[in-house]
């Protein structure tokens, strides 16, 4: 049984646009996989989460920089965020939920009932 969520690198190599890869934390509990991604400057409406076959794509769009001002010094990057993950077969894609808190996207990827450990009683 595959228990790891595998990451698929360089998914955007063929694209013209370049994306920043957000830093993530990933944890597994009995009930779900929990993913946290850093998307500073992205608000709720800038987040796009798509699931296709067994791939989950996170995209975070933002409009950073400020208009009407001269840039004195800059370290932040203009690009949007994107990262693709391969979903573990245990994940119930229909029940994935997400919330956004101060630039952190928190995804809950629940495991389907069929893979949760359960005890089987012996019938009479």
């Amino acid at each position, binding site marked *: 049984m595959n228990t790891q969520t595998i990451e698929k690198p360089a998914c955007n190599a063929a694209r013209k646009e*370049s994306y920043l890869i957000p830093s993530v*934390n990933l944890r597994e509990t009995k009930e779900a996989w929990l993913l*946290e991604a*850093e998307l500073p400057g992205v608000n709720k409406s800038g987040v796009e989460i798509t699931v296709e076959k067994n791939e989950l794509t996170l995209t975070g769009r933002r409009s950073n920089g400020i208009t009407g001002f001269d840039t004195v010094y800059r*370290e932040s990057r203009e690009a949007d965020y994107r990262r693709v993950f391969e979903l573990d077969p245990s994940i119930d894609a229909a029940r994935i939920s997400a919330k956004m808190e101060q*630039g952190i996207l928190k995804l809950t990827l629940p495991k389907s009932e069929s893979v949760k450990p359960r005890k089987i009683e012996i019938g009479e």
Partner: protein
Amino acid sequence: MNLIRYEDPELSNWTPFNRLATLRDEVDRLFGLNTPRDFGLFNGWSPALDIYQDKDNVVVKVELPGMKKEEISISMHEGMLSISGERKLEEETREGESYRRERFYGKFHRTMALPAAVNAGKVTAAYKDGILTVTLPKAEEAKPKQIEVTVS
């Protein structure tokens, strides 16, 4: 290769570091890697910082995703702006088995020289979508002035 964003208050020194950061990002993308971007060699976590100005204000923006307002402190001293804080690991994130830990927890401290004299008493700050925005109104004497030339 973590020599990026070593905190240097001399603004004139940042260009080569900036180039290195860009190079590293290119290498990361080529190999599909994600080396942590926010580690400095000397000061742990060094969040990305931008400085902007127009004729009335200096605006400083810092990328600080996932913090609480109370964990950030801002101070002004002799024309230098200091922003510091500590991001703590939340209790709820300790349960379960961790597979990836790319986010940084701990202290950061950034100090910068501002491009103009500011009115320290009127500095305001806002924290939204993980971005701290500090607005510093320029002092009257630092604003550009039109000087009328009178010809007698």
